[in-house]
């Protein structure tokens, strides 16, 4: 195991975030605060409680999920896309490091960053709304698992992308809409049929629901379904990554 190699990549990726610490942290914190002002303050004050939870508190897990998904994807995808773009990938490919070790370095760093952001947003939200976490360990587990899974997904996008616009296309056209429609700001029980059933095909519903359960002991679907879905998606990403390295897809000719 080339532990030095993994650590080198991990450190490199973390250093990249620290160099841009201000925008890495300030952007999500400001965005989240705006959500609280708009949804929690302006709209939430006119809304009833959702499932016995104050609306401002209710949206916290969804907001964290939204950031977690988009940040995991963009961190990991830029991490591997950038060396491809600048040509420095030659060094990674010529290094005595296995593909899995490379993935651990890149995905580990991307997941670390988005978990840290998730916790920062959680801390920020306590400034705006009362919050209690029913299952803290489960909450952390969901946070880490989701960050890892979507960082893997981001890694795949980074390998696939052949331009900067392709890098942002998946988060912008797929992940953000799915998150908004995935019950980040409402319970899918609030939807009329057939939209409630349609929503069950949205994978993000399971992520938000499971994460919300860890806060309020209540979700749109059962926790088992949520965990099962994350596991399934993670397995798919791992299979795809294994195939990428085996075939050399867009990395090696």
């Amino acid at each position, binding site marked *: 195991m*080339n532990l*030095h*190699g993994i650590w080198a990549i991990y450190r490199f990726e973390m250093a990249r975030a620290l160099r841009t610490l201000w925008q890495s942290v300030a952007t999500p914190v400001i965005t989240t605060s705006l959500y609280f002002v708009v949804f929690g303050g302006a709209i939430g004050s006119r809304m009833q409680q959702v499932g016995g939870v104050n609306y401002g508190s209710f949206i916290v897990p969804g907001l964290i999920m939204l950031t977690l998904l988009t940040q995991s994807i963009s961190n990991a995808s830029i991490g591997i896309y950038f060396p491809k773009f600048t*040509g420095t990938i*030659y*060094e990674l490919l010529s*290094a*005595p490091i296995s593909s899995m070790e490379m993935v651990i370095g890149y995905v580990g760093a991307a997941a670390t960053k988005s978990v840290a952001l998730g916790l920062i947003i959680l801390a920020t939200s306590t400034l705006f709304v009362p919050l209690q976490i029913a299952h803290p360990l489960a909450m952390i587990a969901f946070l880490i698992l989701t960050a890892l899974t979507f960082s893997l997904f981001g890694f795949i996008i980074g390998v696939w992308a052949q331009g900067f616009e392709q890098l942002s296309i998946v988060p912008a056209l797929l992940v953000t809409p799915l998150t908004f429609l995935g019950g980040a700001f409402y319970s899918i029980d609030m939807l009329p049929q057939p939209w409630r059933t349609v929503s069950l095909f949205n994978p993000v519903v399971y992520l938000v629901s499971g994460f919300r359960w860890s806060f309020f002991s209540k979700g749109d679907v059962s926790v088992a379904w949520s965990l099962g879905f994350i596991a399934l998606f993670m397995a798919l990403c791992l299979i795809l990554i294994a195939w990428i390295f085996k075939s050399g897809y867009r990395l090696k*000719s």
Partner: protein
Amino acid sequence: MPVQPILSLAGVGKTYKSGHRALEAVDLEIHKGEIFALLGPNGAGKTTMISIVCGIVNPSEGTITVDGHDAVRDYKKARAMIGLVPQELSVDMFETVIATARFSRRLFGRAPDDGYIEQLLKDLSLWDKRDSKIMALSGGMKRRVLIAKALSHEPDILFLDEPTAGVDVSLRRDMWKLIGRLRERGVTIILTTHYIEEAEEMADRVGVINNGRLLLVDEKSALMKKLGKREMDIALVEPMTTVPGALSEWDLELVDEGHKLRYTFDAQAERTGIPSLLRKLGDLDIGFKDLETSKSSLEDIFVDLVSEREQEEAAL
């Protein structure tokens, strides 16, 4: 010469997905501690060959062995021994010089060693710039950074892909000096170039590659003799039918239906024999109206080598 070569290629070929055949089954053995120059024009397959050995391009066929380790099955051990300086100036613009050297060392599986990195950067005149962002450096400095990265993990084999392409004279001299020092330390060096002089200056052995074929591999001195042939055409006032016996000392032949006398000589030799030949022509009262010397271009040499080899193959 050691029994086991430090690097050996057996039947290594590459066909790209586009169908382009970049490399024809290459067999090559590199000895420990030598400087080997791969000489060939642009697009000859030099970079493809290096990229395959370093793991950047997958070979279509053939096997590569690095000090006994198969470069595919046992790639970690094989690659840990190799450092690569690519042709392109691909560097992390936002990193500092010292950070990128440290990164490379760890990436290649070595524990940090600040003393070694310090010495390395000093050897490459980069120490004063260690905390500069790479983007602030000149092109020549960036190339030094690439060399520092390639040497950061103390490789046994160093690949230099066109090390002096687009590099100014002083850096080229420095580069040659550095290569000399590395050789003293026992590092095996394989470099590609399309300058004959560069191969001549540094290499122990030279391989000539063109159109994906390794045409020949030879000791430099033997090759330089072959490559160093020049010709001088002497346009005669009166055409001749035979070369006069008095001129048998020189390597002469008649061309252009006896209108020209062609003298082939070794440009590397201290005495070319031209002044004495011209004096002798005067003594013999052979009138000539023009002289033209030609240096074989690299292109001509390749053409010669190819036809020579084809003839040899036909003779077998």
